[in-house]
């Protein structure tokens, strides 16, 4: 199960890195389920934080996906980022000493998966509203209306490349806002 997930997820991810949006979408869905289980086990004291952290990890992995090289197990990459983000959260809450579960234990990130998404506590949509229009509009159209890039371009009067750049920069900005909000 564990090894299978690695092979399957890695295959989808590598295709995603080449620009295959369908494979990448599938990868992110499976990844979020694994992250939910992985983080849920470690943050059993704070179930509310789990979905926030799943989203933050997804955004971070998306924004930093150029740091994955195919000579490396995907598990190690995913786990290192999830752990980094989790420790960041725990440090911010200053409760590291209270955690009984050691952070460097052997629970593997792909061992289980939990597909039941709870609602995130942090309002990512609210943070989205603070972005400038050139980033917010492409994101809102692609996310809410499920429009394609070309459709978003004609709906907003932006060029297609401006829509792509807007989404790209907007996701980076969103990650930065998460970092500076609430923590």
């Amino acid at each position, binding site marked *: 199960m564990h090894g299978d997930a690695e092979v399957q997820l890695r295959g989808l991810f590598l295709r995603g*890195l080449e620009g295959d*949006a369908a494979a990448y*979408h599938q990868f992110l869905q499976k990844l979020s389920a694994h992250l939910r289980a992985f983080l849920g086990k470690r943050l059993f004291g704070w179930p509310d934080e789990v979905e926030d952290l799943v989203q933050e990890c997804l955004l971070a992995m998306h924004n*930093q996906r150029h*740091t994955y090289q195919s000579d490396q197990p995907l598990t190690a990459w995913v786990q290192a*980022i999830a752990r980094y983000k989790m420790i960041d959260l725990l440090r911010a809450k200053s409760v590291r000493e209270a955690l009984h579960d050691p952070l460097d234990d052997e629970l593997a990130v792909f061992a289980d998966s939990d597909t039941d*998404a709870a*609602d995130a506590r942090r309002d990512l949509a609210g943070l989205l509203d603070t972005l400038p229009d050139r980033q917010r509009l492409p994101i809102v159209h692609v*996310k809410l209306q*499920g429009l394609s890039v070309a459709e978003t371009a004609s709906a907003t009067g932006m060029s297609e490349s401006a829509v792509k750049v807007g989404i790209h920069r907007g996701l980076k900005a969103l990650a930065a806002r998460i970092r500076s909000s609430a923590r």
Partner: protein
Amino acid sequence: MKTDDLVALLAADAQPVPRNAATRRIALALLLGLPLAAVIMQTRFGVRSDLVQVMYWPMFWVKVLLPCLIAIAGFVVLQRLARPGVAVRGGWLGLALPVLMLWTLAFASYLLAPEAERAGMVWGQTWRTCSLNIALISLPVFVAAMVALKSLAPTRPALAGAGTGALAGAAAAAVYAFHCPELALPFLAIWYVAGMALPVVAGALLGPRVLRW
């Protein structure tokens, strides 16, 4: 926002991603920083006037190549630290070995020298300024590599900052060797190493503040 919505949104941004981004961005930082380091060395200190003759002395090449070895190891360590879940392993040895080698050779040459010459081998003419000069020359590569690292994903920011300092400090020491009038190994073992250590310490302190992502 539901996680599924976020997933759909991220999938909409699935453009092809550059390969080996860590190696290429740090290399670019080095490529941009090194000429600036050379400019600082030339304008503030100047290449030594007898450079052509000095080039026939093995000691000159020790001063250039030893820091180059450290810089290469620093590069390898840094591009590994910039990628989540990648162990540095042998990279640490690559950083430590040239320094240990220098210290061993320096100690031997100190012991073998007549007592009257020993103080000169340690202090030279320029001990007051050498380390600070190297630290100053390290600035362009240091800043450029930090910027590169900010676009990557170091999960151990203090170490990554220290690695940035090692790369920048070692590159700076190699550049400074073109000015430096000193030729004794004990001098290098102390003041060059101290000059490289300054950016390492600065990086370790700055890393956790600057490199968060």
